[in-house]
Protein backbone atom coordinates (compact mmCIF):
# COMPACT_ATOMS: atom_id res chain seq x y z
CA UNK A 1 0.00 0.00 0.00
CA UNK A 2 1.49 3.36 -0.98
CA UNK A 3 0.70 6.48 0.97
CA UNK A 4 -0.51 9.29 -1.31
CA UNK A 5 1.09 11.79 1.08
CA UNK A 6 4.54 10.21 0.75
CA UNK A 7 7.11 11.25 -1.89
CA UNK A 8 7.80 8.60 -4.55
CA UNK A 9 10.62 8.24 -7.05
CA UNK A 10 8.63 9.65 -9.99
CA UNK A 11 7.41 12.75 -8.14
CA UNK A 12 9.59 15.31 -9.90
CA UNK A 13 7.30 18.17 -10.90
CA UNK A 14 6.44 21.47 -9.23
CA UNK A 15 2.88 20.17 -8.84
CA UNK A 16 4.18 17.11 -6.99
CA UNK A 17 5.94 19.49 -4.59
CA UNK A 18 2.76 21.52 -4.09
CA UNK A 19 0.83 18.33 -3.34
CA UNK A 20 3.42 16.75 -1.03
CA UNK A 21 3.40 19.79 1.26
CA UNK A 22 -0.40 19.94 1.27
CA UNK A 23 -0.82 18.19 4.70
CA UNK A 24 1.03 21.18 6.14
CA UNK A 25 -1.20 23.84 4.56
CA UNK A 26 -3.79 24.26 7.31
CA UNK A 27 -1.37 23.77 10.26
CA UNK A 28 1.00 26.32 8.67
CA UNK A 29 -1.81 28.81 8.07
CA UNK A 30 -3.00 28.49 11.68
CA UNK A 31 0.56 28.96 12.93
CA UNK A 32 0.97 31.99 10.64
CA UNK A 33 -2.20 33.43 12.14
CA UNK A 34 -0.81 32.74 15.61
CA UNK A 35 2.29 34.75 14.69
CA UNK A 36 0.09 37.63 13.52
CA UNK A 37 -1.75 37.65 16.85
CA UNK A 38 1.44 37.19 18.90
CA UNK A 39 3.30 40.01 17.14
CA UNK A 40 0.34 42.37 17.36
CA UNK A 41 0.13 41.76 21.09
CA UNK A 42 3.87 42.46 21.28
CA UNK A 43 3.17 45.90 19.83
CA UNK A 44 4.00 45.28 16.16
CA UNK A 45 0.70 46.62 14.79
CA UNK A 46 -1.00 44.87 11.87
CA UNK A 47 1.28 45.57 8.88
CA UNK A 48 4.69 44.68 10.32
CA UNK A 49 3.79 41.04 11.15
CA UNK A 50 2.52 40.51 7.58
CA UNK A 51 5.68 42.02 6.07
CA UNK A 52 7.78 39.90 8.46
CA UNK A 53 6.07 36.70 7.30
CA UNK A 54 6.57 37.66 3.66
CA UNK A 55 10.25 38.61 3.85
CA UNK A 56 11.53 36.39 6.70
CA UNK A 57 9.30 33.34 6.09
CA UNK A 58 10.58 31.41 9.09
CA UNK A 59 8.38 30.70 12.08
CA UNK A 60 11.08 30.14 14.67
CA UNK A 61 13.07 33.25 13.67
CA UNK A 62 9.92 35.39 13.66
CA UNK A 63 8.60 34.22 17.03
CA UNK A 64 12.11 34.63 18.45
CA UNK A 65 12.30 38.19 17.09
CA UNK A 66 8.91 39.21 18.46
CA UNK A 67 9.51 37.71 21.90
CA UNK A 68 13.08 39.03 22.34
CA UNK A 69 12.09 42.54 21.21
CA UNK A 70 8.88 42.35 23.25
CA UNK A 71 10.73 41.46 26.44
CA UNK A 72 12.97 44.51 26.02
CA UNK A 73 15.89 42.74 24.35
CA UNK A 74 18.21 44.65 22.01
CA UNK A 75 18.08 44.52 18.22
CA UNK A 76 21.49 42.85 18.20
CA UNK A 77 20.41 40.01 20.51
CA UNK A 78 17.24 39.59 18.45
CA UNK A 79 19.19 39.26 15.21
CA UNK A 80 21.70 36.89 16.82
CA UNK A 81 18.83 34.68 18.06
CA UNK A 82 17.35 34.65 14.55
CA UNK A 83 20.72 33.80 12.97
CA UNK A 84 21.08 30.85 15.36
CA UNK A 85 17.68 29.41 14.48
CA UNK A 86 18.38 29.97 10.75
CA UNK A 87 21.91 28.61 10.98
CA UNK A 88 21.02 25.14 9.71
CA UNK A 89 19.98 26.66 6.36
CA UNK A 90 23.65 27.41 5.71
CA UNK A 91 24.47 23.70 5.47
CA UNK A 92 21.28 23.09 3.46
CA UNK A 93 22.32 25.80 0.97
CA UNK A 94 25.64 24.04 0.37
CA UNK A 95 23.94 20.65 0.11
CA UNK A 96 21.33 21.70 -2.44
CA UNK A 97 23.36 24.08 -4.61
CA UNK A 98 24.51 21.39 -7.12
CA UNK A 99 20.84 20.40 -7.63
CA UNK A 100 19.80 23.95 -8.60
CA UNK A 101 20.04 25.65 -12.01
CA UNK A 102 22.02 28.43 -13.63
CA UNK A 103 24.90 30.54 -12.37
CA UNK A 104 25.71 31.41 -8.78
CA UNK A 105 23.21 34.27 -8.48
CA UNK A 106 20.34 32.26 -9.96
CA UNK A 107 21.18 29.40 -7.61
CA UNK A 108 21.38 31.77 -4.62
CA UNK A 109 17.92 33.07 -5.57
CA UNK A 110 16.49 29.54 -5.83
CA UNK A 111 18.13 28.72 -2.47
CA UNK A 112 15.68 31.13 -0.86
CA UNK A 113 13.09 28.33 -1.19
CA UNK A 114 14.97 26.36 1.48
CA UNK A 115 12.79 25.46 4.47
CA UNK A 116 12.90 22.32 6.61
CA UNK A 117 9.90 20.43 5.21
CA UNK A 118 10.77 21.27 1.58
CA UNK A 119 14.37 20.08 1.98
CA UNK A 120 13.10 16.77 3.34
CA UNK A 121 10.44 16.44 0.65
CA UNK A 122 12.93 17.29 -2.13
CA UNK A 123 15.54 14.84 -0.87
CA UNK A 124 16.21 11.93 -3.26
CA UNK A 125 18.38 10.03 -0.77
CA UNK A 126 21.40 9.76 -3.08
CA UNK A 127 22.96 13.12 -2.26
CA UNK A 128 20.82 15.04 -4.77
CA UNK A 129 17.55 16.96 -4.50
CA UNK A 130 14.59 17.58 -6.80
CA UNK A 131 14.66 21.32 -7.55
CA UNK A 132 11.05 21.43 -8.74
CA UNK A 133 9.76 19.48 -5.74
CA UNK A 134 11.57 21.95 -3.45
CA UNK A 135 10.02 24.98 -5.16
CA UNK A 136 6.52 23.47 -5.19
CA UNK A 137 6.61 22.38 -1.55
CA UNK A 138 7.82 25.83 -0.51
CA UNK A 139 5.12 27.59 -2.56
CA UNK A 140 2.41 25.72 -0.63
CA UNK A 141 3.93 26.67 2.70
CA UNK A 142 4.63 30.28 1.69
CA UNK A 143 1.02 30.92 0.70
CA UNK A 144 -0.21 29.26 3.91
CA UNK A 145 2.25 31.10 6.17
CA UNK A 146 1.84 34.58 4.69
CA UNK A 147 -1.91 34.16 4.17
CA UNK A 148 -2.34 32.90 7.72
CA UNK A 149 -0.46 35.89 9.07
CA UNK A 150 -2.72 38.26 7.14
CA UNK A 151 -5.75 36.56 8.73
CA UNK A 152 -4.20 36.59 12.20
CA UNK A 153 -3.13 40.24 12.00
CA UNK A 154 -6.50 41.46 10.76
CA UNK A 155 -8.96 39.03 12.31
CA UNK A 156 -7.19 37.58 15.35
CA UNK A 157 -7.49 33.88 16.12
CA UNK A 158 -10.13 33.37 13.44
CA UNK A 159 -8.69 29.98 12.53
CA UNK A 160 -8.49 28.75 16.11
CA UNK A 161 -5.81 28.56 18.78
CA UNK A 162 -2.63 26.59 18.01
CA UNK A 163 -2.44 24.86 21.39
CA UNK A 164 -6.16 24.21 21.86
CA UNK A 165 -6.30 22.50 18.44
CA UNK A 166 -3.09 20.55 19.05
CA UNK A 167 -1.50 22.08 15.92
CA UNK A 168 1.89 22.24 17.65
CA UNK A 169 1.91 18.42 17.68
CA UNK A 170 1.26 18.24 13.92
CA UNK A 171 4.66 19.60 12.82
CA UNK A 172 6.85 17.12 14.74
CA UNK A 173 4.45 14.34 13.68
CA UNK A 174 4.84 15.39 10.02
CA UNK A 175 8.64 15.36 10.34
CA UNK A 176 8.40 11.96 12.04
CA UNK A 177 6.39 10.69 9.07
CA UNK A 178 9.08 11.92 6.66
CA UNK A 179 11.80 10.47 8.90
CA UNK A 180 10.24 6.99 8.82
CA UNK A 181 10.57 7.03 5.02
CA UNK A 182 14.22 8.06 5.25
CA UNK A 183 15.19 5.04 7.36
CA UNK A 184 16.14 2.96 4.33
CA UNK A 185 19.28 1.32 5.71
CA UNK A 186 21.34 0.91 8.85
CA UNK A 187 23.40 4.05 8.24
CA UNK A 188 20.26 6.18 8.10
CA UNK A 189 18.93 4.63 11.33
CA UNK A 190 22.24 5.21 13.14
CA UNK A 191 22.35 8.80 11.88
CA UNK A 192 18.79 9.51 13.00
CA UNK A 193 19.42 8.04 16.46
CA UNK A 194 22.59 10.10 16.87
CA UNK A 195 20.85 13.25 15.61
CA UNK A 196 17.94 12.79 18.02
CA UNK A 197 20.28 12.08 20.94
CA UNK A 198 22.42 15.18 20.25
CA UNK A 199 19.34 17.38 20.00
CA UNK A 200 17.86 15.94 23.20
CA UNK A 201 21.05 16.39 25.23
CA UNK A 202 21.60 19.96 24.03
CA UNK A 203 17.96 21.07 24.30
CA UNK A 204 18.09 22.05 28.00
CA UNK A 205 21.63 23.47 27.71
CA UNK A 206 21.75 25.69 24.62
CA UNK A 207 19.76 28.52 22.98
CA UNK A 208 17.12 27.58 20.37
CA UNK A 209 18.67 26.63 17.04
CA UNK A 210 21.79 24.94 18.41
CA UNK A 211 20.13 21.55 19.17
CA UNK A 212 18.90 21.25 15.56
CA UNK A 213 22.26 22.34 14.08
CA UNK A 214 24.14 19.84 16.29
CA UNK A 215 21.64 17.08 15.54
CA UNK A 216 21.96 17.72 11.79
CA UNK A 217 25.72 17.36 12.16
CA UNK A 218 25.06 13.65 12.76
CA UNK A 219 25.02 13.50 8.94
CA UNK A 220 28.84 13.65 9.18
CA UNK A 221 28.57 9.89 9.81
CA UNK A 222 28.32 9.86 6.01
CA UNK A 223 32.08 10.49 5.85
CA UNK A 224 32.69 6.90 6.92
CA UNK A 225 33.54 4.50 4.14
CA UNK A 226 30.98 1.84 3.39
Amino acid at each position, binding site marked *: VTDPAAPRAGDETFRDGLRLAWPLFLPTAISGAAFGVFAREAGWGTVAPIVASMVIFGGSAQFASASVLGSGGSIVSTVVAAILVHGRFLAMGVAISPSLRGGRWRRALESQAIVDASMALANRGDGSFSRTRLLGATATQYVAWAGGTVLGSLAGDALGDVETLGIDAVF*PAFFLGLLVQELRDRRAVETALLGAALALVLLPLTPPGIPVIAGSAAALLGLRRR
Partner: protein
Amino acid sequence: MTRVWVTIALVAFAGVVIKGVGALILGRRELPERALGVVALFAPALLAALVVFQTFGATGGGFALDARAAGVAAAGVALALRVPLLLALLLAAGVAAGIRAV
Protein backbone atom coordinates in the same frame (compact mmCIF):
# COMPACT_ATOMS: atom_id res chain seq x y z
CA MET B 1 8.17 50.86 15.93
CA THR B 2 11.41 51.78 14.13
CA ARG B 3 13.06 49.04 16.19
CA VAL B 4 10.57 46.52 14.80
CA TRP B 5 11.18 47.51 11.16
CA VAL B 6 14.97 47.54 11.57
CA THR B 7 14.79 44.08 13.17
CA ILE B 8 12.57 42.70 10.39
CA ALA B 9 14.97 44.05 7.75
CA LEU B 10 18.08 42.67 9.46
CA VAL B 11 16.58 39.24 10.19
CA ALA B 12 15.28 38.97 6.61
CA PHE B 13 18.68 40.00 5.22
CA ALA B 14 20.47 37.49 7.46
CA GLY B 15 18.13 34.75 6.26
CA VAL B 16 18.72 35.58 2.58
CA VAL B 17 22.50 35.54 3.08
CA ILE B 18 22.47 32.31 5.14
CA LYS B 19 20.38 30.47 2.54
CA GLY B 20 22.21 31.86 -0.49
CA VAL B 21 25.86 31.88 0.51
CA GLY B 22 26.40 28.18 -0.22
CA ALA B 23 25.25 28.64 -3.83
CA LEU B 24 27.26 31.86 -4.22
CA ILE B 25 30.45 30.09 -3.18
CA LEU B 26 29.84 26.84 -5.05
CA GLY B 27 28.34 28.26 -8.25
CA ARG B 28 28.19 25.51 -10.86
CA ARG B 29 30.64 23.29 -9.03
CA GLU B 30 29.64 19.85 -7.80
CA LEU B 31 30.31 18.70 -4.26
CA PRO B 32 33.27 16.34 -3.75
CA GLU B 33 32.48 12.60 -3.76
CA ARG B 34 32.83 12.17 0.00
CA ALA B 35 30.50 15.08 0.76
CA LEU B 36 27.68 13.32 -1.10
CA GLY B 37 27.60 10.66 1.62
CA VAL B 38 27.04 13.43 4.17
CA VAL B 39 24.33 15.11 2.07
CA ALA B 40 22.55 11.76 1.65
CA LEU B 41 22.33 11.42 5.44
CA PHE B 42 21.36 15.05 6.00
CA ALA B 43 17.60 14.40 5.85
CA PRO B 44 17.45 11.68 8.54
CA ALA B 45 19.76 13.70 10.83
CA LEU B 46 17.82 16.94 10.39
CA LEU B 47 14.41 15.29 10.68
CA ALA B 48 15.36 13.41 13.85
CA ALA B 49 16.65 16.62 15.44
CA LEU B 50 13.53 18.53 14.36
CA VAL B 51 11.22 15.88 15.82
CA VAL B 52 13.02 16.14 19.16
CA PHE B 53 13.17 19.96 19.09
CA GLN B 54 9.55 20.49 18.13
CA THR B 55 8.25 17.82 20.51
CA PHE B 56 10.25 18.79 23.60
CA GLY B 57 11.40 22.37 22.95
CA ALA B 58 9.93 24.94 25.34
CA THR B 59 8.91 28.42 24.18
CA GLY B 60 11.96 30.63 24.52
CA GLY B 61 14.34 27.67 24.90
CA GLY B 62 14.82 24.67 27.19
CA PHE B 63 13.08 21.33 27.63
CA ALA B 64 9.35 20.82 28.17
CA LEU B 65 7.26 17.66 28.43
CA ASP B 66 3.64 18.39 27.55
CA ALA B 67 0.67 17.23 25.45
CA ARG B 68 2.73 17.50 22.24
CA ALA B 69 4.77 14.43 23.26
CA ALA B 70 1.62 12.31 23.63
CA GLY B 71 0.33 13.52 20.25
CA VAL B 72 3.62 12.74 18.49
CA ALA B 73 3.85 9.34 20.22
CA ALA B 74 0.34 8.49 19.02
CA ALA B 75 1.30 9.51 15.48
CA GLY B 76 4.43 7.37 15.76
CA VAL B 77 2.41 4.29 16.67
CA ALA B 78 -0.03 5.03 13.84
CA LEU B 79 2.83 5.40 11.33
CA ALA B 80 4.34 2.12 12.54
CA LEU B 81 0.95 0.49 11.81
CA ARG B 82 1.14 1.96 8.25
CA VAL B 83 -1.67 4.42 8.82
CA PRO B 84 -1.59 7.14 6.06
CA LEU B 85 0.35 10.27 7.00
CA LEU B 86 -2.65 12.62 6.96
CA LEU B 87 -4.57 10.41 9.40
CA ALA B 88 -1.52 10.20 11.66
CA LEU B 89 -1.30 14.02 11.70
CA LEU B 90 -4.98 14.33 12.62
CA LEU B 91 -4.39 11.81 15.39
CA ALA B 92 -1.42 13.84 16.71
CA ALA B 93 -3.53 17.01 16.84
CA GLY B 94 -6.50 15.18 18.33
CA VAL B 95 -4.53 13.55 21.13
CA ALA B 96 -2.69 16.76 22.06
CA ALA B 97 -5.92 18.77 21.96
CA GLY B 98 -7.78 16.11 23.94
CA ILE B 99 -5.20 16.06 26.73
CA ARG B 100 -5.30 19.85 26.99
CA ALA B 101 -9.09 19.85 27.07
CA VAL B 102 -9.19 17.55 30.12
